[in-house]
């Protein structure tokens, strides 16, 4: 009873926050509701025993992606009145596409799905250990490739947003390394009372 009650609590909250993400006028509110939605799905994952994915979801989505969204939303100066204008034009086509997808999935669910309904089975190993067993053996190549995907995304984001300013003086490492001490320092003999000439 506890599990069913918690499920319905979190699921209702999740659906409500997702609706608020779409319909809020201010993009900052949308991002904060998105954080709440991810937090609720984390609770759901922990509820059914997928602790590792739940915590990873919280770390990646709330800690990285949502904060990235928040930074971008705060960085861009958007007039919020222009964003949601003539929203009524798109309601019919949005309802149409949502209805089509809903009908397709309900059709597939009713006519194509199997009736078997296995329950949660208690396991000998914990969740993280099970994931680690396959992630570094069976899915080793995929794991490395996802690292490469992240590297490419990082390089791509930096290259896209980087602004090259030619007026800024930069460090030139080749030039630094090729200088010798005689280019910079000159030893002179200073006679008393005369000083040196500046050249």
């Amino acid at each position, binding site marked *: 009873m506890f599990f069913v009650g918690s*499920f319905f609590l979190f699921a209702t909250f999740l659906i409500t926050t997702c609706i608020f993400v779409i319909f809020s006028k201010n993009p900052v509110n949308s991002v904060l509701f998105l954080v709440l939605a991810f937090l609720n799905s984390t609770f759901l994952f922990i509820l059914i025993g997928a602790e590792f994915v739940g915590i990873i979801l919280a770390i990646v989505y709330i800690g990285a992606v949502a904060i*990235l*969204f928040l930074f971008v939303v705060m960085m861009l100066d958007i007039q919020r009145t222009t*964003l949601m204008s003539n*929203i009524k034009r798109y309601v019919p086509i949005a309802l149409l596409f949502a209805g089509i997808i809903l009908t397709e999935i309900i059709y597939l669910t009713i006519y194509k799905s199997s009736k078997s*309904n296995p329950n949660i089975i208690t396991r000998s190993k914990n*969740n993280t250990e099970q994931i680690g067993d396959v992630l570094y053996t069976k899915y080793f190549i995929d794991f490395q490739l996802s690292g490469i995907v992240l590297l490419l995304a990082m390089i791509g984001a930096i290259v896209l947003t980087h602004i090259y300013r030619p007026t800024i003086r930069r460090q030139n490492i080749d030039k630094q390394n090729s200088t010798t001490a005689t280019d910079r320092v000159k030893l002179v003999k200073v006679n008393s009372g005369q000083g040196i000439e500046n050249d």
Partner: protein
Amino acid sequence: MTSLSYNHFFTLSLVIFIIGCFGLFLNRRNMILILMCIEIILLAANINFVSASVFLNDINGQVFSIFILTIAAAEAAIGLAILVVYFRNKGEIDITQINQLKD
């Protein structure tokens, strides 16, 4: 243990997926909201993968959920970078104005 079944989670992920698609078609003006709707759709896919993995007692679904998370993070980073560049060039993020490739 419980009377929770896979159908509960499947219905939940279906509803979230539909909300994401609805928002994708609804917010034609705001590029940030479109990216957020894509995140919602990926979250629905994740819920489906993880709950199927738990109820079928097969760990591979959760591993794929981690890969989906990776791709979603990369996609968000690239999408927001494109958004920032676009805003810097045009001063707005209205996607109905993206028709510069026509010229």
